[in-house]
């Protein structure tokens, strides 16, 4: 739905007074439109706004927001104000006039699983931002997937009102950040909007690689860092050792470091005190021309793009004409508000505040993360420094297993892209898999999550090819090209040399696992850079490692070699020349482009052998003998064959058994449908991920 079709039809008739928007549905149908104000569990009021004739689009309405009731006539019901009166009161408090001195913007940074989201939950509860009844674990993680896996994927913001023991009221803006290494760009984005960061360290696990990485990011942005030891209630907690680690590895003073337990709530109120005490308030620059940095945005089907921003200079008010400095586009600010953590509209946001803006922006591209908002009639001189764009590191092909779903896949990717700017995709076609997309991801977890969301939220049945990285190919004619799909690699005689991406990898591990980890890293073509004994028991290893070796299952192996104690962090470090070849696989004499990969020449033979053996296990026996060959160019370097199928299930079939037999056949046919036909051979989807599973067994 284009934002042109967005119209305000009135205000919520309860206290929040927020404007109600609607989208369009079926063509030229007139339906009565109601706003239903929903308070708690009881339907309080249903207000008839009048009949409305839909215009030209035929967009579907997401049922969560708009409801076409099934009563006598189709009617559109807009739900609004889904909160208790008391929470509205709290939000009203939130909108009182304030001075920058009362504002504290902070984020929580930590290694994955050190308890960021739990601490955020406690802070929200302590400040009564969320009523106990609405409270659920990982409150800020709104995606199902986030809750299920217990991880944070997207950054989240919440505004809290805090009355300090000294009697002053403060506004605390919390930005919760993801912990997984794939999403570190989200962390860097949120850091810019803050003056301080709470560094959460697990009191038993100590400082981990991601802790360090996040600390470096935070100190680069000039943030005040408050170290906090979490999980001190655990029997295995060793606060003294961990404090020592923090001093030695990070160089932070831990003399009055807080020891808390976010789970039990111990000392969490002190965290709030520390925030007010140690994190500096934002500078009061309200008199300057407006400059607000967009740090996040998402697409809402009813209101267009909603951007989250931090005001650095000046004041942003509702109803003003605004300009986005990088895209040079002007919009009318329809609604400005704070996140408490639900969106609450306010009249104005002053310098130092964090909030959201609705301005009828049609596409996410118009309001890119990192852009600066200023006023159209009184623009600022220069934009704020933005962000580096998140670069996709890992690529893989996504193909619908049913060719009819191609358009659905395109639509689903478009929608995901709206809220996940780091996802990139372009159409590609493969002789084996038909039409699909080559997608770029930040890392394997990101890839896994996108695939899972596609299948879960959009009901798509996908075949994913094994992940690869981008290579630079230099040809004999001095031209060069970037390839993201191994199949695109030109014939060997045309290629002068290849360059592959490397990362700087840092592993922090208990000293006793250094040996196995070095062995692993060497076997993955790692180049040793540095080794430091941080404390008596912990060591940091620094390697340069080809990204291709990292993206398969390196992280899992690091974990298993160190019994889960090591942690790792990596940064992009550039391209290096490598002796690489294209390994192709032919099934029944036909080259399968989806199984093509670029590997190091020294490893090509062993990989090809393992791959063909794996494929032999994965491809079910068929009516004829199938040769499976690994090839470099036209040279066969490994060969296996799958013997012909001998026998099906020979159910005896009395009259009553026919329905069972039919079920059995249907089931078997379903199984076949999930496979891709390569020539005459049906290949199951797992086979296309054989490279992945192969690496797992190999080590």
């Amino acid at each position, binding site marked *: 739905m284009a934002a042109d079709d967005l119209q305000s039809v009135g205000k919520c008739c309860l206290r929040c007074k927020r404007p109600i928007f609607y989208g369009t549905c079926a063509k030229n149908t007139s339906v009565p439109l109601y706003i239903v104000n929903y308070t708690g569990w009881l339907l309080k009021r249903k207000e008839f706004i009048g009949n409305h004739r839909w215009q030209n689009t035929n967009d579907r309405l997401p049922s969560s927001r708009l409801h076409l009731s099934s009563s006598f006539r189709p009617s559109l019901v807009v739900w609004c104000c889904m909160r208790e009166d008391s929470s509205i009161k709290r939000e009203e408090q939130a909108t009182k006039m304030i001075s920058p001195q009362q504002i504290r913007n902070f984020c929580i940074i930590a290694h994955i699983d050190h308890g960021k989201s739990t601490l955020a939950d406690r802070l929200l509860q302590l400040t009564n931002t969320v009523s106990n009844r609405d409270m659920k674990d990982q409150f800020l993680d709104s995606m199902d997937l986030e809750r299920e896996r217990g991880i944070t994927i997207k950054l989240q913001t919440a505004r809290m009102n805090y009355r300090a023991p000294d009697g002053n009221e403060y506004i605390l803006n919390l930005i919760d950040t993801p912990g997984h290494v794939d999403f570190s760009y989200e962390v860097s984005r949120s850091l810019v909007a803050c003056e301080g960061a709470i560094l959460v360290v697990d009191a038993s696990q100590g400082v981990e690689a991601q802790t360090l990485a996040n600390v470096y990011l935070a100190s680069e942005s000039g943030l005040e860092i408050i170290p906090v030891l979490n999980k001190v209630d655990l029997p295995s907690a060793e606060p003294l050792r961990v404090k020592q680690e923090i001093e030695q590895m990070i160089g932070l003073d831990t003399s009055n470091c807080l020891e808390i337990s976010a789970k039990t709530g111990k000392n969490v109120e002190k965290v709030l005190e520390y925030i007010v005490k140690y994190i500096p308030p934002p500078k009061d620059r309200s008199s300057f021309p407006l400059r607000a940095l967009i740090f996040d945005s998402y697409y809402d089907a009813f209101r267009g793009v909603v951007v989250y921003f931090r005001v650095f200079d000046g004041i942003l008010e509702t109803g003003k004409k605004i300009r986005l400095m990088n895209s040079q586009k002007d919009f009318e600010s329809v609604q400005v508000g704070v996140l408490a953590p639900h969106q609450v509209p306010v009249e104005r946001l002053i310098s130092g505040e964090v909030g959201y803006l609705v301005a009828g922006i049609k596409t996410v591209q118009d309001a890119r993360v990192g852009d600066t908002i200023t006023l159209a009639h009184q623009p600022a001189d220069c934009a704020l420094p933005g962000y580096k764009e998140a670069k996709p590191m890992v690529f893989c092909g996504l193909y619908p297993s049913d060719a009819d779903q191609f358009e659905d896949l395109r639509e689903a990717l478009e929608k995901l892209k709206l809220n996940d700017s780091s996802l990139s995709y372009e159409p590609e076609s493969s002789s084996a898999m038909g039409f699909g997309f080559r997608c770029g991801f930040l890392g394997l977890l990101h890839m896994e999550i996108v695939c899972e969301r596609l299948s879960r939220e959009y009901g798509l049945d996908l075949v994913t090819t094994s992940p690869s990285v981008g290579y630079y190919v230099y040809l004999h004619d001095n031209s060069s090209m970037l390839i993201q799909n191994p199949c695109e690699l030109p014939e060997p005689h045309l290629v002068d040399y290849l360059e592959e991406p490397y990362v700087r990898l840092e592993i922090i591990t208990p000293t006793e696992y250094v040996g196995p980890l070095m062995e692993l890293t060497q076997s993955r073509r790692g180049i040793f850079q540095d080794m430091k004994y941080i404390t008596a028991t912990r060591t940091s290893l620094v390697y340069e490692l080809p990204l291709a070796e990292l993206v398969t299952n390196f992280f899992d192996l690091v974990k298993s070699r160190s019994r889960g104690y090591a942690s790792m962090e990596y940064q992009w470090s550039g391209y290096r020349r490598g002796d690489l070849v294209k390994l192709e696989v032919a099934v029944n004499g036909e080259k399968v482009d989806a199984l093509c990969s670029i590997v190091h020449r020294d490893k090509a033979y062993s990989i090809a052998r393992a791959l063909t053996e794996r494929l032999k296990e994965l491809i079910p*026996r068929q*009516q*004829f003998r199938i040769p499976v060959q690994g090839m470099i160019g036209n040279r066969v370097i490994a060969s296996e064959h799958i*013997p012909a*199928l*001998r*026998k*099906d*299930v*020979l*159910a*005896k*079939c*009395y*009259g*009553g*058994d*026919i*329905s069972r*037999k*039919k079920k*059995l*056949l249907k089931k*078997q*046919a379903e199984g*076949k449908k999930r496979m891709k036909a390569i020539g005459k051979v049906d290949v199951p989807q797992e086979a296309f991920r054989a490279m992945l599973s192969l690496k797992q067994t190999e080590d």
Partner: protein
Amino acid sequence: MKQSSSFVKRLGFIKPCLFKYFSTRHKPQTLFRRMMLCHNTSLLENTTDWTLPKSAYIHIPFCVRKCLYCDFAVVAGTTNLNLYDTYIEHLLKEIETTLSYFKRKYQKLPALETLYIGGGTPSVLSYIHLQRIVDKLQQYVDFAPTSEFTVEMDPGTFDLSKARQFRNLGVNRVSIGVQSFDDNLLKLCGRSHNSKQVYMAWDILRTAGFTNLSLDLMSGLPYQSEEIFRDSIEKAISLDPEHLSCYDLIIEQSTPFGKKYQSGVFPLPSEDEAACMYILASSRLREQGYEHYEISNYGKPAYLSKHNQTYWKNQSYYGFGMSATSYTEMKRFTRPRKLVSYFEWVKQLEKRKGELECPQESLREQAVDTLILGLRMKQGISLNTFTKLYGQSISQLVIDASQPWITSGHMLEIYNRNGQLEGLALKDPEGFLLQNSILISLLEKSLWTTNSSTYPVTLS
């Protein structure tokens, strides 16, 4: 009538049994009734070819003990004769209600040509029970003079007097569950008898005067090697049975075997070994003069099971008793698999005066059934009948879909004297072994469509 006799001419040379099948099929009376029916029924019934059943299956769920691979509806180990009586009461009630319903609706019922009492182990019943069942049936239907009346009997559950009594009641064919001649295997499978009892049982039946005996064997049992299986086959041959069934073990999840073993994994034979056993049985028995007339069944030429062919030709049949399936008036219905719910269901049936609450099978379903069942038989499906019942276009789709399998040597085309394509069948043993794969590919290209509610092409 004219049409059917032209069938006979065309089919006659292929198989004598087929001739019999078509010639007995349309008696003038049934044809007349069908014409009457056509007046007020839908097109569906108009185009389908159905007659009143001439076969009946009766299920006796009682067993001495339950075999470890068995997932039939069975009540094992009970010696409570009251339970036998209660079950027979309900069974008789069901027969009475059902047959009187048919009698009311169609006035005269055709004589039964086959009656099959299976289980379970029907031979645990006393002859009085059996007599009551036979009497009840005879109140409503006649038994045709050439009727085939089979009872499944397990070694160790009957003596000579019981065998004679059964024979006097009209039983003329006995299917005896041997499964294997290897005592270790029998024990492992939880069978209630050993090989010695098999020989005794065989002597008893021959002494009692049975001239049509069928013997069940199993292949693919755990720890069963090709040698052990070959030995069982040879021992079976030495008994000179008129009919043999060789079933390949299917591991069902709900059984003790299902929890203990995994298909194709030791101690179960691998796929290749199991295939070898199948091929061994097929070649050895054919060599011995048995006709491999269905995937798992072998018979001397005049002793093919008439009853089972009713199933495979997708003809209608009555079904009585717990878990029994019936196929009457185009309704395929399976009775409850638990005693209590079966008793309850019989009471409901009485209230409904014998009418089954079950939808009729669609034409498409019938075509699928005909294909699945027909291709189990050596004679395969007759394309003429198939075309007549389900339309030229469907028939053509099936023929087209079978081409790759004919090329690969898994299917056979059957031509008549004039060189016209007459039927399709699976090749023995290659095609039989891959029946599922073949069926799936045929069905996918003909009767299964992505939207399975409609025919891919309209019926002519």
